């Protein structure tokens, strides 16, 4: 059965698009059929992170408006044939993203893919709520700082009220992905600790991605970090997170610490 995931955060610039690309590629690398959808109409990015920007002809809005058929808008990755992108429109008005249209696209994709990963725009407006609307599970991307954590808390509230699952009285599975983690700054108390973030958000942890130049380097060459340098620290953390998404039990390591002290926390499932 297809899993619809939304990658969301409230705040911008925390690493949603980076994570969508990295996790999508990691899942595809493990043999899963993956489509990643860019919901950031007007500020599309995911095509760049996948190095597909020069092959975009049709986009999500073209499909919704009936200008193109869904298969015409899907772009297959050059490295992994089971990784596919549905790009956003850079020019259209985001009001063209309709509730019905999104429902039709998701329903059609559910028939073809194992994983449908929706890269949400920042904010709590229409674009963000439409991206989460059909989600079975959510990846909440948070940086270990107060404003990002508060915005994530807000988003979790929306996941519990604005999604189809919530409206049916069911629960959207929630996974917390802490990105841009800097061990040295956390030790000096300049960032929230992993413990603090987990305590505030009381949401199970999917992974901790360290801050790394490798991420920037990857995006500059149009490749998810999990494909450009699979041995780098952020890539390994993303691979682990992808395996956890598949239900595998992978020990959690805090970057910069050798002990696997977070096993305990990972097991602490709340909300």
């Amino acid at each position, binding site marked *: 059965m297809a899993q619809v995931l939304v990658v969301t955060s409230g705040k911008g610039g925390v690493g949603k698009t980076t994570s969508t690309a990295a996790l999508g590629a990691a899942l595809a690398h493990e043999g899963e059929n993956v489509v990643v959808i860019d919901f950031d109409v007007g500020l599309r990015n995911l095509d760049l992170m996948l190095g597909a920007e020069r092959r975009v002809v049709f986009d999500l809005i073209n499909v919704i408006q009936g200008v193109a058929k869904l298969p015409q808008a899907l772009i297959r990755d050059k490295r992994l044939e089971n990784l596919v992108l549905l790009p956003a429109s850079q020019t259209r008005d985001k009001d063209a993203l309709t509730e019905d249209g999104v429902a039709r696209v998701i329903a059609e994709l559910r028939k073809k893919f194992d994983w449908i990963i929706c890269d949400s725009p920042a904010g*709590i407006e229409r674009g963000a709520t439409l991206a989460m609307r059909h989600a079975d599970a959510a990846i909440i991307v948070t940086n270990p700082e107060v404003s990002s954590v*508060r915005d994530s*808390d*807000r988003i*979790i509230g929306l996941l*519990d*009220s604005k999604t189809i699952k919530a*409206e049916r009285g069911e629960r959207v599975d929630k996974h917390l992905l802490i990105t841009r983690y800097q061990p040295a700054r956390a030790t000096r108390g300049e960032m929230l600790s992993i413990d603090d973030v987990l305590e*505030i958000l*009381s949401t199970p942890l999917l992974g901790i991605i360290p801050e790394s130049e490798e991420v920037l380097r990857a995006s500059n060459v149009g490749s998810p970090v999990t494909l450009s340098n699979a041995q780098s620290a952020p890539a390994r953390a993303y691979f682990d997170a992808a395996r956890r998404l598949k239900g595998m039990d992978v020990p959690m390591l805090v970057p910069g610490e050798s002990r696997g002290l977070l096993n305990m926390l990972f097991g602490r499932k709340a909300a």
Partner: protein
Amino acid sequence: MSSVVGQRQSLMFRARSYMAFVFTPQPPIVEWLADLDAGLERSKGFFAGHPVALDLSAVQLSASAIAQLIAEIEARNIRVLGIEGVTVPEGEAGLPPILREGRGAQAFELPASAAGSAPQHQQPGSLLVENPVRSGQSVVSEGDITVLGSVGSGAEIIAGGSIHIYGTLRGRALAGATGNARARIFCHRVEAELLAIDSYYKTADDIEGSLRRRPAQAWLEGRTLKISAMN
């Protein structure tokens, strides 16, 4: 008197009542407005997004004077939902609706005619919230409210009665909001942005540092909001 939770469940209710803060301007109005400004200065945005009703029974104002007063209040980013205690004709141009039979906590009995037909769930009992209250959510009930999880920064709990929070309170808790000075707030760990009972409040800056991150309770002693540790 039904409870309103800031989540989708609330749509199940057909009829709802909302709690509003009530302002009672006193003459001279100019001084009353100055007092209001001083209060707002101490806690910016306190009334933002909350309905406010004006009880005009303590002043004698013509329709145009009322309109002017409302304009003054709305210029302070406070929305006036309705007015009460006035003798101007209903539907006077430009004035908000006239509210009647507002109930405070002290005069809580339902009118005899309505009491018999009031459904069970409309009794001001206590509301139990089992999930964490997330930023941006607000939970409102005329009775007591018990929250099993935490209340996030930017979330708020507004109760006619007392508030019990078994997690960490990082947002706002407003107890005794219908004018009940005996209401209290209890929380397992206080990191609150604001604590209020009846209409007396303390913001984060006013809460003593030594109390933070500890179990605490708040109550009203005369006109002072007291907070003490509970261990």
